[in-house]
């Protein structure tokens, strides 16, 4: 049984309330941080722990915090990125709904560490209950003196505002989140400058994912060395893996980084459902590349998944069985990026739209043999050329599916229908 760190006590009844949370180590880390450490020492501790961002990019958290300039004429802010919208990902929602105080305690300690006096929790609009849980936790914390002026007599002040989004995947991109929080359309900003230098209202801003922040209290309570004793050399600690798709037991599973994909899918997920075979896996949310079944033993850490040809990403592991038409699945994934593209830059706005048109044509049986190369060419014109990572994300499953399952695309062109799945038929003739 894996040691639970960020999801410890998640099943204790009432753990989402202040009293029960306090009875289970709640806010002990905050007390320890305020009483025993200087802010800079907390930053060093988080650096030493090896904690890396859990939203998708995996940037070292302590290092990100240390990028804030020592002097700035504008106030500093911290934003908790709770805009969880990456298909296949559902861990942050669980943390906010079931452990809102742990998330909040992480926000408070991290704000203390980075000399921030006003923090925002940007919750995507569709997560109404999660937003209410965070609001209630904030209210309870104010009443108990964990927020506001002179927290626990330390002299440290912090205000927290829970901010509700209104439906936009792009607002999970940190610079678009800032635009949205400033009351504008969620168009990404040019980077550099990065939010650490010029962020919210132009001031130095820390932006971290919900799970990243929720990991800070356990690190403070039990120490950086203890946290770093889990995981691999470059991917320390544990993380929540979100298992979904064609498995018997989909759900959130907190496991040490480096756990093999097979262990997650078979031991925890109960294996591929309906007695079927594994066809493909997306390891880190739909913005990451497909892996074939030969990669089932890949350790789930940043380096190993990258070496296998994909990314650890958001931890959203999506499993596809052998009755899945890959072309239809990629069409569905691509519709997401077309719908969520903010429209600011031409490669992404036009490219995502065009790719869906081509995939629709291929799936419907009107595709041309040149369509696959055209798709790859469109992806090449988006990747690295779009204004923000959403464009790149839109290309991942398209290029990797053409690479791994080209014969399935060619089958659609040749016969006019799917090779497998509910719309597969025997071809009427064997000639093209």
């Amino acid at each position, binding site marked *: 049984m894996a040691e639970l760190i960020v999801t410890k006590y998640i099943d204790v009844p009432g753990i989402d309330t202040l009293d029960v949370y306090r009875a289970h180590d709640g806010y002990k880390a905050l007390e320890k941080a305020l009483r025993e450490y200087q802010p800079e020492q907390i930053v060093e501790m988080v650096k030493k722990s090896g904690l890396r961002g859990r939203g998708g990019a995996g940037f070292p958290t302590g290092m990100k915090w240390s990028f804030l300039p020592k002097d700035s004429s504008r106030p500093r802010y911290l934003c908790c990125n709770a805009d969880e*919208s990456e298909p*296949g990902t559902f861990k942050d929602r669980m943390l906010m709904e079931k452990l809102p105080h742990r998330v909040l305690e992480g926000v408070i300690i991290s704000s203390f560490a980075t000399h921030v006096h006003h923090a925002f929790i940007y919750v995507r609009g569709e997560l109404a209950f999660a937003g209410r849980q965070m609001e209630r936790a904030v209210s309870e914390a104010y009443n108990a003196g964990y927020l506001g002026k002179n927290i626990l007599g330390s002299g440290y002040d912090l205000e927290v505002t829970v*901010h509700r989004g209104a439906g936009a995947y792009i607002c999970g991109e940190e610079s678009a989140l800032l635009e949205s929080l400033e009351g504008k359309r969620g168009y990404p900003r040019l980077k550099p400058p990065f939010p650490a230098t010029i962020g919210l209202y132009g001031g130095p801003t820390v932006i971290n994912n919900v799970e990243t922040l929720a990991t800070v209290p356990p690190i403070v309570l039990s120490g950086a060395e203890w946290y770093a004793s889990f995981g691999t050399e470059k991917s320390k600690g544990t993380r929540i893996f979100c298992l*979904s798709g064609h498995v018997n037991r989909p759900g959130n599973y907190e496991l040490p980084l480096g756990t093999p994909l097979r262990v997650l899918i078979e031991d925890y997920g109960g294996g591929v459902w309906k007695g079927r075979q594994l066809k493909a896996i997306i390891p880190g949310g739909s913005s990451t590349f497909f892996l074939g079944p030969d990669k089932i033993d890949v350790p789930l850490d940043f380096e190993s998944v990258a070496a296998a040809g994909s990314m650890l990403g958001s931890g959203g592991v*999506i499993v596809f069985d052998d009755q899945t038409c890959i072309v239809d699945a990629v069409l569905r994934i691509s519709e*997401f990026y077309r719908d969520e593209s903010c429209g600011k830059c031409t490669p992404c706005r036009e490219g995502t739209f065009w790719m869906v048109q081509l995939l629709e044509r291929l799936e419907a049986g009107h595709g041309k043999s040149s369509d696959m190369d055209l798709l790859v060419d469109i992806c090449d014109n988006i990747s690295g050329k779009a204004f923000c990572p959403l464009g790149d994300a839109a290309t991942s499953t398209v290029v990797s599916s053409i690479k791994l399952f080209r014969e399935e695309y060619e089958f659609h062109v040749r016969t006019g229908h799917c090779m497998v799945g509910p719309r597969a038929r025997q071809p009427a003739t064997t000639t093209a």
Partner: protein
Amino acid sequence: MISQEAKQRMHAAVARYPVARSAMLPALHIVQEEEGFITEEGINAVAEVIGAKPDEVQSIATFYSMYFKKPAGQYVIKVCTSISCYLRGCDQLLEHLEKRLGIPRGQTTPDGQFTLLTTECLASCGTAPVLQVNNEFVEDLTTDKVDALIAELRRQPATTAQEC
């Protein structure tokens, strides 16, 4: 009708931020709660409270997918159709719902009770397929569960947006 109480809530929202304009999204949510969709009166109210031009408020309202441009039903059903729900049969459930409600996706029933929409990933992939009714989750869907849900909702008294 944007009530005085709603305007007060908008002012309270402004007070939570260092810059008034940051209350734009919360204020638009208040309009939608009051009117059921983003009305012209609502846009003007937000503009006045925030200190922005109505055009600017309109531009924000049209960017975010949760704000409706026209009236919606008493119960807005959003069915997730992203990849993990697709893999667990959301398309068949959506077709079933269309038959049950007698409307295609994107439409509202003639009696104004139900609006049926598709939506992108709702962060509930572990309990797929899922839908939301007025932003509250109904998970681990089956056709039986969907039928029971519609029957339950049909038993509720009909209200208009303003009375909610």
